[in-house]
């Protein structure tokens, strides 16, 4: 039985360009307090454009209805559980939104004098300090714009360190359970990729790693806990193997929500890692960004951090550009400051004890789902679960129903699907991360839904295969979208 939702009336909405009509406007500019100038004469006739063909022309009322109607076609955390594995879809506190919009912070220009930017620099310094404490690392840069950008930054630093020692080396080792960003990052940093197979528990095979590490290996990129939600129990041994051969341990911090207040990568051998403020530290995902991907490092990598670096000067904070060994800039200015403000607000709200409590609840939630769902779905890796668990569709596949279809059926029950078909080491993966901000009642509803779907798979598989049924948009034809790409609106041919 579907308990969480029932269908309700939902508006149709045409595209802005179809809603437009000539002469409509949604703005009013104040009168010009200086003389108008003739654009063509000051810019040159060839430099000015004619009207922007088909650009929107709608009223303010139509504009707000347009976006409000469209918004109602989205699922969101504020509507319920969003169990995407490794995405850490937790509640986004609204006070964070409010403080990020405080005028002095939101309107600060990156080139305004440092004496008039002390407040914002202090926010950044406080966040750097808190993240260093949480990760057990020695220094943090807030410059990278997202997780993958942080990976890129971290790997460039590894490369710079090794170059300073005379040999940048040739390749990165990456477990087969890793996110796709890891190998893509390796390529952007000029490294070849060698995959490392996981063992039966879903962990890095230490013997295979020991065989693979040689003088050509720059680093291992490791997610811990990994994408199965499993803690790499041999992590200190792994670090030793790498360090003995002069290689670095890069930790992908995508799953840091399982460790905050419990264990620190800096204490278990990581040399460099990134964090995703939009995962662990509650900044909103916003339909795909903005994120923020701070990178934390141990002492030996500090000289290579991107520039500029925050520095404590006599009269307050200042930007230090005098960093001869720095990898340079990875983006203009200093990072996604708006996200830094939100993340610091989150850390302040929880406090040290609250952050640890959040981790405990996140792991409790994942284990609760694991125990209640294991009778119905196969759990291929039996190692203890931390923040997420990965089932396989093996039993359902016998009835011809795969993970992607179970995911679509979940939509009818009022839930966003889990992560489908990832990690790649689990055939038909169903990767579930509830986070700490789900109540027991919401988890129970989710369990009921998945149990109900497991029954449907056996009794009425067609119902699942053709889902979703109750959404305003039924199954979308993604194949045609890719084969015959239509990437923009064009006026109908008259």
């Amino acid at each position, binding site marked *: 039985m579907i308990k969480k939702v029932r269908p309700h009336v939902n508006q149709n909405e045409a595209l802005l360009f179809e809603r437009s009509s000539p002469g409509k406007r949604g*703005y009013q500019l104040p009168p010009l307090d200086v003389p108008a100038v003739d654009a063509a004469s000051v810019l040159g006739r060839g430099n000015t454009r004619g009207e922007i063909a088909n650009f929107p022309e709608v009223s303010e009322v139509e504009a707000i209805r347009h976006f409000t109607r469209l918004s109602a076609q989205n699922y969101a955390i504020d509507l319920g559980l969003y169990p995407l594995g490794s995405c850490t879809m937790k509640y986004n506190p609204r006070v964070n939104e409010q403080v990020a919009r405080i005028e002095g912070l939101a309107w600060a220009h990156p080139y305004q004098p440092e004496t*008039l930017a002390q407040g914002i620099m202090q926010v950044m310094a406080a966040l750097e300090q808190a993240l260093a404490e949480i990760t057990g690392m020695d220094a943090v840069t807030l410059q990278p714009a997202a997780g993958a950008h942080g990976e890129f930054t971290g790997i460039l630093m590894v490369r710079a360190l090794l170059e300073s020692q005379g040999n940048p080396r040739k390749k990165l080792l990456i477990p087969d359970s890793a996110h796709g960003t890891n190998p*893509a990052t390796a390529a952007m940093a000029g490294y070849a990729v060698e995959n490392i197979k996981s063992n039966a528990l879903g962990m890095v095979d230490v013997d295979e790693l020991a065989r693979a590490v040689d003088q050509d290996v720059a680093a291992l990129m490791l997610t811990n806990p990994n994408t199965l939600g499993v803690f790499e129990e041999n992590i200190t041994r792994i670090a030793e193997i790498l360090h003995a051969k002069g290689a670095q341990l890069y930790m992908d911090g995508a799953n840091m929500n399982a460790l905050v207040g419990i264990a620190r990568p800096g204490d278990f051998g990581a040399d460099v890692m990134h964090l995703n403020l939009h995962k662990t530290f509650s900044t909103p995902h916003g339909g795909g960004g903005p994120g923020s991907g701070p990178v934390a490092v141990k002492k030996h990598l500090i000289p290579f951090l991107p520039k500029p670096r925050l520095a404590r000067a006599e009269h307050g904070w200042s930007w230090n550009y005098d960093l001869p060994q720095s990898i340079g800039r990875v983006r203009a200015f200093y990072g996604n400051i708006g996200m830094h403000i939100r993340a610091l607000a989150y850390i302040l709200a929880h406090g040290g*004890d609250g952050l640890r409590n959040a981790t405990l609840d996140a792991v409790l939630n994942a284990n609760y789902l694991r125990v209640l769902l294991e009778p119905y779905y196969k759990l291929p890796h039996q190692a203890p679960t931390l923040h997420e668990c990965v089932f396989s569709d093996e039993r359902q596949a016998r009835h011809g129903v795969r993970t992607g279809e179970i995911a679509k059926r979940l939509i009818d029950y009022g839930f966003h699907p889990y992560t489908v078909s990832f990690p790649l080491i689990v055939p038909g993966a169903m990767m579930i991360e509830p986070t700490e901000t789900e109540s027991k009642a919401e988890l129970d509803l989710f369990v009921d839904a998945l149990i109900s779907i497991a029954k449907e798979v056996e009794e009425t598989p067609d119902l699942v295969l053709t889902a979703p049924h109750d959404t305003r948009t039924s199954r979308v*034809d993604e194949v045609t979208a890719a084969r015959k*790409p239509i990437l923009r609106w064009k006026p109908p041919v008259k």
Partner: protein
Amino acid sequence: MRYLPKSEIERREMLSALGVESRESLFAHLPAEVRLNRPLDIPAGKSEYEIIDQFRARGAECADGYASFLGAGVYRHYRPVLVDTVVSRSEFLTSYTPYQAEISQGTLTTIFEFQTMICQLTGMEVANASMYDGSTAVPEAAMMAMRLTGRDRVLVARTVHPEYREVLATYARHQGMPIAEVDYARETGALDLADLEQKIDGETAAVIIQSPNFFGVIEDVPRVAEIAHRHGALLIFVFAEAVSLGLLEPPRDADIVAGELQSFAISPSYGGPFAGIIATKEKFMRQMPGRIVGETKDTRGNRAFCLTLAAREQHIRREKATSNICTNQALVALMATVFMTVYGKQGLRELAEQNLAKAHYLAGKLRQRFSGPFFNEFVASAKSPEAINESLLERKIIGGLPLARFYPELGDGMLFCATEMSRREEMDLVAEAFGQ
């Protein structure tokens, strides 16, 4: 703790379902040597009131209430109220990347509209869903040009934003992408075409220019395009001040456009989050980095949108992907979308005209360094830029950006920007400071 929705009773019920005593025991398998055996050194949790108070105090330390004539890649434009109204909706704010098209049509539709408007503005045929910002869009565009031409050398104008060029250098170092800079004409402040002719050759993958350039000067895009194309190189056109596109001829001759949309209702926010874009010709679309939304149909035959051309992306292609970009700037791109909708066809032009008028009013009162045509930014010459800025600060005005830090040869140069938010009285005060 207010963000944790469970009672102790519920926790105990859940623990008993698991057959364990405490939440801590779920970590019992972690080796002792990796455990943190002390509380985090972070103060106790604070109330909402205390948090707001604390950040207000920080904001008050940051030029709150100052007028500013800084531009240089970050512009003060009015943000229509509708922008925050829309992006504050939970359904946009708290959703994920729209992989599940059936319950993400809101985000997907707005991205499709965004892509369309970026094409209309830039004269390109396709655009992606966003990049991190303008500075990172530049190296991504350069790498795209490398793949498209099979060449590896890149020429970048010295009039491209200095920090964008620094980011390009960071990316290029490990791509086997040699970069050379093309100088500017000392008289006009525009790209030195003779220097370009001299440096370009059959190995050049791309020529990168920005217009209006870092000095505010408008480049001769058709001429540069002609030179680039004559040598089989692509033209990458960069814009940092998107409002200029309301008035300036779009870069139709460019092959790739890499831009920054901060001007479209995105708060300066000390430099981010912003949103970049890459737009290009249809024939190049499969080499574009980043998310792209396409139109299709659902099984009932209704129009629907979905993420598409995923075969370019890291989650499918891993190390063979066009880029490692994953999370981009969707919500910020939505701000730009709402901005473009509110201003629309007429409004964007009127807004650009106001910017033009304000900047030319201010420039008319100062000594201009360059003769090239400009939009809302220009370089003024001053005996002591620092002294001028200090005297302006006393009147709560942040003056222009002294250029010496980026261009040692322009020690007397100050980059001034005036937008629709600049007031005549404030501009007169700037002129006064110059007169002293």
